[in-house]
């Protein structure tokens, strides 16, 4: 009140006309209003009229707020769905350069080796293709391999290139012949061991790649009982082809089981521990935990 400006009627420099008008306006009401009649009508209007914030009005306000909240949630869900549906670009140039996994049972030609592989690995693979005899430099399966990133199955290599689906119908069991372990350039256990288990839930591959990945997982599982080394090689190949695949959990679980089946208990335990850290609630957890406790 103290900071309010001086009222016009309290000002000494006010013109007589303005002063007279303001005094008139302050002294007398502008209209003659019959308050008693107004109150009587007001009584009639009040019958049944709620006072204050009635329960109905509060419910109405609450329903409006709930509708607004639902609308916002729906908008956010739509945006999130669109974001997830949109295919993401390849994760890295290495993944882009990796060979296509369409028809995974197809043999791994030397030119399809990942670009990141060393030249030494390529040099090791090419002679195996050119010669019919097994290479003397081929490392035995039981021996740890440090620099052999690829696996080659001769029986599969000889087959004509065909779509994966048709081949899977013709030969549902594509297990290699009994001599296969001798023909296998075994998978690189140490290189695998030095690579940590990748934990990711991002679907970074297309649906077609996911189907191929699943097919490879199924084949590795079939090979695991009788040919654990081959299964390991397939799993390592799968790791390179789909480093952030959709079935990483299954792949790593099969790797632990295959290592255990191959008698490589130390590596199996290491992989089992890292697997249990990454997927403590996995359906494979019980079996993997059994291996880790041994």
């Amino acid at each position: 009140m103290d900071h309010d400006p001086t009222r016009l009627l309290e000002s000494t420099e006010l013109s007589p006309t303005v002063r007279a008008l303001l005094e008139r306006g302050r002294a007398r009401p502008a209209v003659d209003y019959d308050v008693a009649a107004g109150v009587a009508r007001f009584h009639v209007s009040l019958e049944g009229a709620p006072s204050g914030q009635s329960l109905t009005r509060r419910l109405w306000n609450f329903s409006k707020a709930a509708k607004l909240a639902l609308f916002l949630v729906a908008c956010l869900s739509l945006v999130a769905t669109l974001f997830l549906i949109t295919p993401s670009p390849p994760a890295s140039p290495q993944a882009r350069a990796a060979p296509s996994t369409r028809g995974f049972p197809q043999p791994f030609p030397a030119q399809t080796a990942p670009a990141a592989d060393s030249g030494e690995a390529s040099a090791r693979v090419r002679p195996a293709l050119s010669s019919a005899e097994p290479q003397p430099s081929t490392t035995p399966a039981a021996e740890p391999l440090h620099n052999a990133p690829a696996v080659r199955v001769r029986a599969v290599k000889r087959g004509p290139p065909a779509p994966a689906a048709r081949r899977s119908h013709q030969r549902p069991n594509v297990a290699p012949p009994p001599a296969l372990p001798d023909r296998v350039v075994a998978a690189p256990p140490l290189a695998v061991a030095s690579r940590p288990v990748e934990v990711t839930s991002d679907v970074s591959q297309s649906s077609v790649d996911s189907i191929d990945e699943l097919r490879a997982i199924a084949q590795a599982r079939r090979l695991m009982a009788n040919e654990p080394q081959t299964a390991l090689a397939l799993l390592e190949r799968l790791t390179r082809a789909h480093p952030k695949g959709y079935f990483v959990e299954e792949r790593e679980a099969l790797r632990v089981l295959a290592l255990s089946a191959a008698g490589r208990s130390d590596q199996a335990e290491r992989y089992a521990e890292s697997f249990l850290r990454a997927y403590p609630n996995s359906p494979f957890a019980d079996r993997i935990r059994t291996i880790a406790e041994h």
Partner: protein
Amino acid sequence: MSHDPPEGCPSIDSETLFRSYGAFVASFLHRLGVRAADLDDAVQDVFMAAHRKGGYRSGAASPTTFLGRLALDARRSVRRRNLRFWKAHGESAASAVGGTDASGPEQALILRQTTDQLQAALEELEPEVRAVFLLFELEGESCKAIAAAFGLKIGTVYSRLHHARTTFQAYLAQAERREQKALLRHHGPRPDALTRKY
């Protein structure tokens, strides 16, 4: 003004408000430009709105500013209901009503002219500005109470008040000059005007 606010009431119910401030609300609505035919409905709207709010509750806003805010809202709704009439007759529809407290015909004419002149000057102001001007200059309310009732910053109230005063006085000065010119045209210059030095 003739309204008698209840003394020391922290909260006032709507009926008591009506009895104490009914005349003020009617006068305020009239000065905001509500025509006589809509005045009773507008007054009822104001106090029904006050009833829905649970009456007046003591706070920064006074009962007068509280009802002034509701009256401004009621004026908007009345204008919306009768938009066709307002478009046809303009803002001066309420100027036909005035207090009749004169002792004789001549006094009544003077009062009527004064009332019309005041209303004409008020109608130069926007309704929101006019409400602030009326509450501050005629009702004697503080700027703080006005700001609290209308949900305005105190600076906005000062600004509106300044604008209202300037416009109000400028209109009256211009009206006075027009009147003097008209007198000169019909009756010639006043005797004192010939000797006045500027």
